[in-house]
């Protein structure tokens, strides 16, 4: 069975959570996936090393958009340390997907990568 019909995927795809750029944010990061041109940008407002608010913008297939949406839900309110621990596998589990080919897994990996880069760039700015 393709991921195409997973309820969670379609739910998040059709009704994305945390979509859009928040009014204020402390760090942002965007990247795209050369395999398919999917792109995701993430904005995070941070307070006391916790994600206070998170928003995403992006364009792509159901899988990448659903992953981005779900991920923002999962890390909202979390500490930066915890947020850094999230993986593709976690998103797949949550979405109910057992297996994905190497090209499709990049659709899930993209938001994860973007989230981490946003947090890391925030941390390194703090430290310098």
């Amino acid at each position, binding site marked *: 069975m393709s*991921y*195409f019909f997973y309820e969670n995927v379609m739910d998040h795809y059709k009704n994305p959570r945390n979509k859009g750029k928040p009014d204020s944010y402390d760090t942002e990061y965007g990247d795209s996936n050369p395999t398919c*041109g999917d792109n995701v940008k993430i904005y995070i407002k941070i307070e006391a090393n916790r994600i206070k608010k998170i928003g995403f913008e992006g364009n*792509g*297939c*159901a*899988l990448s958009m659903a992953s981005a949406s779900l991920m923002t839900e999962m890390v909202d309110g979390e500490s930066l340390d915890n947020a850094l621990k999230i993986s593709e596998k976690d998103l797949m589990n949550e979405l109910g997907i057992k297996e994905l080919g190497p090209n499709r897994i990049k*659709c899930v990996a993209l938001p994860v990568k973007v989230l981490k880069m946003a947090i890391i760039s925030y941390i390194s700015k703090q430290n310098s």
Partner: protein
Amino acid sequence: MGYIEKNIKDIREDFPILSRPGFIYLDSAATSQKPFVVLEKMDWVYKNLNANVHRGIYKIAEDITEEYERSRKEISGFINASESEIVFTRNTTESINLAAYMLLQKLKRGDRIVTTLLEHHSNFLPWKKIAKIAGLNLELVKVTSEALIDEEDFEKKIENAKVVAFTHVSNVAGTIVDVKRLARKAKERGAFVLIDGAQATPHMKVDVSNLAVDFYVFSGHKMLGPTGIGVLYGKKDLLEELEPPFTGGEMVKEVHKDGQSWNDVPWKFEPGTPNYVGSIGLAEAVRYIKKIGIDQIETYEKKLSEYLLENVGNIKGLRYAGPKNNRAALLAFEIKGVHPHDVAAYLDMKGIAVRSGWHCAQPLQEELGFSNGTTRASLYFYNTFSEIDKLRTALEELVNIV
């Protein structure tokens, strides 16, 4: 009924992968499948004749050299060029890069290079690169909403251009460009002309002696040949005149500490051990195509193309790129409300292999308003009308689900 229609069952049996039950391969514009004869030929060469070409005196080294140069002859004959005009490369992309670097010596700051919005990235980025290196100006000819070259703009831009490069057939829109007429115009303005034939040579008769072109390039893997082999056709006089950008063994006659003389064309442009087994495999592919008949292929694919347009092009909510007629047997499209990747993923679930995304032609797709790219079904002579029916059925199902 033409030759292919009559023999389609036998033809399909020549391709190992096509016998897989429930598998429909509609991605030949990305790469074609390979017939047994090509695979057997390469295997035979490795097992019986493997030695490095050109410099050996012993028996199999002589035999492989002869076989390698025979492959050049076969391929040159296929596009009606002479052997010394066929430079083997890795693929179309390398051919274009090589030609661009070769032309650098002919260009000076401020010179104009013209290509078009119809191009694959491989016929755009290399020109951009050398433009940056040498301070040249690169201009893109516009396309119409049907993805035809805007001829008025073409006429304007080729005025005083030093290089004009465009595609023979678009890999996204299926546009078949009237290369004969347009190349002539560019040539008359005194430009060097390069044609990207990656989507043409597999599907139609190409006769370079009849085209006003300096370079014509294509890939082996898209025309039943192996991966890792491409062709740069260049006019002999020009090849003789131009310097090789890449150098090394095999492409020199003599080398001394402070001087060397290049080998004759085409070897001058083939430094290092060539992919000789790849060339021999491609020649075998050409022989197979000639056996089927390139005219037969063209005729049959014309019917496939029309059938595809009539049966898939009109699905509700589907919008396709390119002209309404005289198109290659491929269709790149979007379906309202479904991301192109999701269309491809759905079709995959149904056993239908298509490609989705930018197809290395992002500027064109953006121009035509496909802001997420497209899904593309592309056919070859081993495809059938009933496979198109199945594609239609699957797409209609999908449209009904979303």
